């Protein structure tokens, strides 16, 4: 059995999130005009097999930097899930 991880990738604070803006304006049309600062991210889940917990964390961090997140515009957060 591998260790299951969830990676949350979000746009950094200063980066305009046009999807979030579109969602906000759609909801505003339905009178949810008090919902603000909607930001859209991405959740990526994966199993890491055959290595220790520490090595698994290091590996997930490595692939976040390599591919899953673009450090120019995004930040990421790694969680271990059951």
């Amino acid at each position: 059995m591998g260790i299951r991880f969830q990676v949350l990738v979000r746009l950094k604070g200063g980066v305009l999130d046009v999807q979030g803006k579109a969602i906000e304006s759609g909801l505003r049309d339905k009178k949810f005009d008090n919902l603000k600062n909607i930001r859209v991210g991405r959740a990526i889940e994966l199993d890491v097999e055959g290595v220790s917990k520490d090595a698994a964390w290091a590996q997930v961090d490595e692939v976040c930097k390599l591919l899953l997140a673009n450090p120019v515009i995004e930040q990421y957060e790694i969680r271990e899930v059951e």
Partner: protein
Amino acid sequence: MRVAVVVFPGTNCDQDVLHVFGGLLGAEVFPVWHRDRDLKRADLVVLPGGFSYGDYLRTGALAKLSPVMDSVREFAGKGGRVLGICNGFQILCEAGLLPGALLENVGRRFLSQFVRIRVESTVGFFTAGREGGGVITCPIAHFQGNYFADEETLKEIEDNRQVVFRYCDPHGVVEAGTLECNVNGSRNAIAGVSNRAGNVVGLMPHPERAVEAVIGYVGGESGLEPFRAVCKS
């Protein structure tokens, strides 16, 4: 002049680029499949437009992991000239060969239209001969063309004159604050940038689609000049 045109799964502007360099300008052109590592003694490597890997994850993100990109990185590191157009620009940014990133267009529309871009700098090899600047009219076709770089990077690339093209109006005036001019909302209306050394250049617009007056529509053949200059230099 030997021009390698890299083809990823989903690339769709490779034939246009092969035609410009091979058909119109008489260069020796050849496609290089993304699984290959051999750039076959190319003088110039072009990453053409398209939707490599279906734009999965982020535009250009998966393409940067293709084997050919190791060779492109090495080639660029030695001063080899690399040009990325549209998706090719996105790939070069993802690969870290160019500064910044391309976000979704501010208006959240796929933009398929003609734009005007002003030559801003001769640091990049693609505009090296254009001291007089000038305006190119050519199409764009993208959903993620909104150039982004943080303030620090932006200052750096402006100071080093790495901004190669900016979106402008018909008179060559740049109005970064209006979407009529800066159609996708790019920072500082940036349409193309180079690396510090100038041997890697990327741009969102498609000058290779405005190279023959007979089919260039409003763009005429205004896109041809930089390709021609590259072949001569």
